[in-house]
Structure formats: C-alpha cells, structure tokens
C-alpha cells in the first residue's frame, strides 16, 4: 500500500514536471516569439487595426460601433443618429447578462432561437424602424427590400459590416439629412462596397466606420 502511494506520488511529480517544462515552451516562449514577430511585421494589425480621422483615433476598422444621438433624459436606450450610416442591430446578450450594444468589453450573440417570442418581436420592430427611418420624401422603402442583416444581431455583437443592400437602402436618408445629393452618397457607398475576397470568399460587404469617415470628409469639403 505504502509502496503504491509513493509510486503514485512519483508519477504525479513526473506529470507536474512535464507540465511545467511544456508550459515554459508553449505558454511563455511561443506567445512571446509570436508577439515579437507580429509586432515587428504587422504592428498596426497586431494592435487592433486602429483607424484615424482628422488625426484622432476613431476606433478599429474591424470592430463595429454605435452611431447614436446623446442619451436624453427619460430614455433607456439612445436613438440612432440618422445623419450617419447605421450598422446592424446589436441586442447583445439580452437579459441573460450584460448587454453588449457595440461595447467591446463583452462580445457575444443573443442566442435566441428562431421561435423565440422576444426575437420575433425584435425582428418585427427593427424592420418597422428600418422602413420608417429610411423612407424619405419621394422614396419609400418596400418591406421586401429590407435585407436580413438589417434586422438581426450578429454573432460577435461587434459586426463592423453591413450588406451592400442595407447600405443602399440608407442612401436616400443619409443624403437628405446631410443636404447631399443621392448620387453623391450612392457613389460613396459604391466606392466602399467590398466584393468577395478573390471573387469567391465571404460575402460582399460595406464597412460602416470607413463609410462614415468618408461621408464626414465629403461634408468637410463642401
């Protein structure tokens, strides 16, 4: 009995030593080497692909953000600032935990199922809002034109992109709110629409932050 106990202890000791040696290799040397190479070769990307406008950092081209009006008294959630292009709805982790709402401090999805009453209501509300917000004088959004990404939350809650269809749908509104012509804004969207990588990878998309920065620059020129 005593003998088997010492054997077990010796074996566990061997296991622990193995773990410590491999921790040094894979848990210290490996991440430090990769960080060194990454910081030397891809400094900008390794630090989050930050993007500047007017000399100031305005976020990351990879991470979506909110374009809202300041929160008014009595409001629980701020209303969107319709001057700017809007990203996807981000209902975040919902009532289950902290609500992400484009806050990088916690990423995540709503995890609501297709038959979840709350999700059905969110989608209905988002759809109605997209139609109402984007219809201008002389341009009415048809319900069939609203793409799925405009009314659903993404997996990360930080989706930086929208579909070209959703961007196109916002053109009339953005033009009206900023006193620009529809043609000017449409050109902006077209210039910022990225196709599939190498023609087949991923989906066509528009980076909302880059589009809004270009919009701001256009406004400054006028």
């Amino acid at each position: 009995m005593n003998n088997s106990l010492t054997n077990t202890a010796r074996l566990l000791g061997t296991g622990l030593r193995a773990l410590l040696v491999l921790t040094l290799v894979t848990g210290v040397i490996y991440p430090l080497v990769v960080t060194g190479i990454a910081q030397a070769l891809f400094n900008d990307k390794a630090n989050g692909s930050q993007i500047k406008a007017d000399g100031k950092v305005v976020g990351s081209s990879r991470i979506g953000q909110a374009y809202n009006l300041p929160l008014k008294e009595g409001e629980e959630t701020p209303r969107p600032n319709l001057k700017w292009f809007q990203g996807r709805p981000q209902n975040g982790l919902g009532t289950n935990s902290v609500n992400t709402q484009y806050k990088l401090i916690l990423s995540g999805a709503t995890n609501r199922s297709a038959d979840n009453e709350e999700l059905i209501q969110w989608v209905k509300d988002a759809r109605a809002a997209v139609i109402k917000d984007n219809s201008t004088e002389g341009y009415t959004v048809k319900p069939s034109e609203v793409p799925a990404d405009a009314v659903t939350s993404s997996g990360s809650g930080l989706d930086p992109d929208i579909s070209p269809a959703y961007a196109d749908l916002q053109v009339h509104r953005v033009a009206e709110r900023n006193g620009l012509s529809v043609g000017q804004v449409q050109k902006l969207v077209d210039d910022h629409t990225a196709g599939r990588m190498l023609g087949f990878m991923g989906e066509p998309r528009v980076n909302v932050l880059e589009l809004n920065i270009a919009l701001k620059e256009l406004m400054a020129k006028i």
Partner: protein
Amino acid sequence: MGPVLAGVLQLLALIAALALAYRPLGDYMARVYSSDKHWRVEKWICRGIGADPSTEMRWPAYLRGVLAFSAAGVLFLYLLQRLQGVLPGSLGFSAIDPDQAFNTAASFVSNTNWQSYYGEQAMGHVVQTAGLAVQNFVSAAVGMAVAVALVRGFARSRSGELGNFWSDMVRGVTRILLPVSVIAAIVLVACGAIQNFSGIHEVGQFMGDSQEWNGGAVASQEAIKELGTNGGGYFNANSAHPFENPTPFSNLFEIFLILVIPFSLTRTFGRMVGSLKQGYAILGTMGAIWLGFVALMLWTEFAHPGPAFDIAGGAMEGKEVRFGISTSSIWAVSTTLTSTGAVNSFHSSFTGFGGGIALLGMQLGEVAPGGVGSGLYGMLIMAVIAVFIAGLMVGRTPEYLGKKIGSREIKLAACYILITPALVLVFTAAAMALPTPGNSMTNSGAHGFSEILYAYSSGANNNGSAFAGLNADTQWFNTTIGLAMLLGRFLPMVFVLALAGLLAEQRPVPATAGTLRTEKPLFTGLLVGAILIITGLTYFPALALGPLAEGLAA
C-alpha cells in the same frame, strides 16, 4: 454570383487545400511517431521531466502516464485560476470561483474547452497564455499519443508494447503542433487578428465617446485553438469576434486548421499499419459523413425555416456579414464533427434542424474527422464494432487489420461506445428532473430542452460549443459538466489503451478468402451505416424532444 455558388466554391477550395496537405502531413506525422531519433530539445525536455524517452511501455504504464500528466494539468490550471487575483499580468481580474475554476480546468485538460466564463471579463494574460493555451497544446498532444498507441496495437504483434507516452506527447508538441501554430498565428495576425500584451484601455470612437479594449495574445492562442481542435475562445464571441477571425480568408483558413490534422491522421494510420488503402477507407468514411452533414446544414440554413427568420428574410441572427450563411454552416459542421467547439456563428440561433445537425454531429462521437487523435481512435473503435457486426452476419470470427476481434476486444469496444451516451442522457435527465437547472434556459419549450441536451452532449463528447443561451455558470452545471468532460475524455482512453494492449499481444492472422476486406468501399459503407444507426438509435428519443420538434414545427 449568388451566395450558394460562392459557398460551394469555398467548400471546394477548402477540400482542395486539405487534399494538398494530406499526403505530406500524414506521412510526416507517421515519421514523427516512428523515428528512433530524439531531437536535442526533446532530450532536454525529457531530462526535465525525468523520463527516459526510449523505454517501451505496455498499456498500463502508458495509461498511467496519460492520467498522471492530465491530473497534474487539472491541478495546475485550477490553482492558476484560483490565484489569479495575486498573479501579475491579470488585468485586474480576481480569482475564479472554485466551481468555475474546476469546470474550466477539466474543460481545457480534456480538450473540450467548454467555457462558462466570459473570456474578456474573467481571464488575464497569464491564465490565458500560460494556463489555457498550454492545455490547448498538450491536451491535443495527449489525444494524438493515445491514437498512435492504438495504431501501434494494430501494427505490432506478440509484444504488448505501445511506445513511450512521454516521447509521443512531447513530439506531438515539438514536431507537429508548435511549428504549424507559429506559422498559422503569423498568418492570422497578417489577416488582422491581434497579438499584444496591452492592458485594458480606452479607444476613441467616431461619435466622440470611447470603447474599452483589452489586448491579448489572441492570434497565438487562436492558431492552436483550431489546430488542436480545442475551441476555447480568447473572447466570449469566440471566432465570431473580429479580433480572432477578421476576414473571410482567415475564416476559411481556420476551418482548414480545424480539419487538417484529423483528416491527415488517416494517412499516418495507413502508413503505420502498412496499408495506405486501410487509411483511405477510414478517410472515406470520415469524408462522406462530413460532406453529407455540410450539405444538410447548407440546405436548412439557406432555406431558413422558423418564424423569426421568415420575417427577417434569412437566418442571419448570430451570424457575421463577412462570413454569411455558407461558411457559417460549413464551420458549424466542422466544429461539431471534430472535438473543436469553436464557433464563428451562434448555434442557438441556427434553424431548428441546423441546431439538430450540430447536436447530432457531436453525438456521433466526433469521428468525422473528429478531434486530433480522438477522432482516429474513435473511428477505429467504430471499425472494430463494424467488423464485429459483419462477422455476426456471416458467422465468422471477425478480424481487423490481421487481429482477431474476440470477446475481450469487443467488450472493451462496447464499453467505449456506451460511456458517452450514458453520461449525456443521465445528466440531461437529471438536469431536467431537478427543479433549478431549468432556470438557466434563455429559450423555452423544445429549444430550452435542446440547450441542456446540447450542453451535456458537448461536454461528454469533449466538444465545447454551446447553445449559449444557457447560463452555465451555476454550481450545478459547472460541477456536472466538469465531471462529464473528465469522464467522457479519460474513461474512453482507458478502454482504447486496454484494447491497444490486447491487440499488440496478439499474433497476426493471415488474411484468407473469408476475411472481410476492410480497405474496400463496401466496408466504408458498412462503417457509415454502423455509426449512424448506433448513434441514431441511442439519441433519437432525445433529439425528437428537442431539435426535431422545433424543426418540424417551423
């Protein structure tokens, strides 16, 4: 080009890349595990361990190595989390509670990577890189070592010797996982994944406010997380997070990393048993199931049945625009048919059938192609079962790869396939019967039940993905899922190694006209059938209550 065609092209590109890597990587891994030469660095490591890498071990010794190393891993990772509050480089995060620390330690050591914590709100640099990422390497290396031991059981005769655990495990890290991870991590950084050690800081925003960022060694962890079929995300959103998986290319590349070792190991197997055709038969089985599941998943996600998706006009809830429906579906199948569990879109918001496909993928035992190592040994166990069933049909003693499958062998194989379903169904039933666990559900009805069934299927099969609406950070779930992960990982390994030991003691029987030709397509068909029928019958009642009920109602 429509999204469906683009999806098919991406699938073909993925298959082409896997096919290109198959021969060189498979042959290389066979050489790694057959070579007598130890690298100098491996000798240093083995000296540090205090083990002689050249000693041959019989199965009990090999198993003791596996268990001792893994027990040390659980203990170390548990303590690291409990001490986080006083460790440097913790970003100000406090110690993890005991039940969650146990769950997480069990999770990463068992190659599951189930996460009941929120990465960016709980784990600092030290725990992530020196704790969690280390287990990503070594738990994968342990899985490969056990698979190689079983292959040696078939390849060797009249010796009972299975190789040296310490040498196999260390070589898996130094010669396979580490070199590929370094390259993969740099590719991911080049795509835009972050890799730094900055603390929590504010970054300005377009509208003038700010976002709170925390840095991290993300790309280095992401690479091994996919390559070692681990799946535990640095961030809560896992590979949906743009800093883990920034572009459509990084997305396809990560799917490739998930699949490349499990598929290529069939070549390693063929090489080591001296018949590449035997490896192709296993590869054919894995490939057929994987492709079939991908086709079904693409169909249901593009058709998007379900009330919310009908109104939205597409199943984009929980999916990223840059990946779209197609690669979210391919990823979901690849992550649940391996033991990965990383996600680039959230399975709980898939269609009813889509969630069911992910669930069934795990319940098949993750053999198509399965986790690194665990996929191969799981599939070889199923092959043993399949030759046994075929033997019963024709009234002959079954044999596989020249080894007789007698009553002792088949008992061990049977124990292997019974453990996981028993864990899944008993724990699910207990959680449903007790009054409080159900409070963790986010969704109600059939989907709520699926959340719990999914949790235990994921835990016991060492997958780690979730119907993440379930609030799993409760004492009940942390404890029971922790147990399911440990038992679901190490009990099967006991039976695999015992079987390997028995096989290695046998003398080979020459093939005769009556021998079932296990390298032929007929056997591949038999094996696919055996896997689907055995699992299907085991889980059908539970699946009928969850995803099938939800899918049929939509």
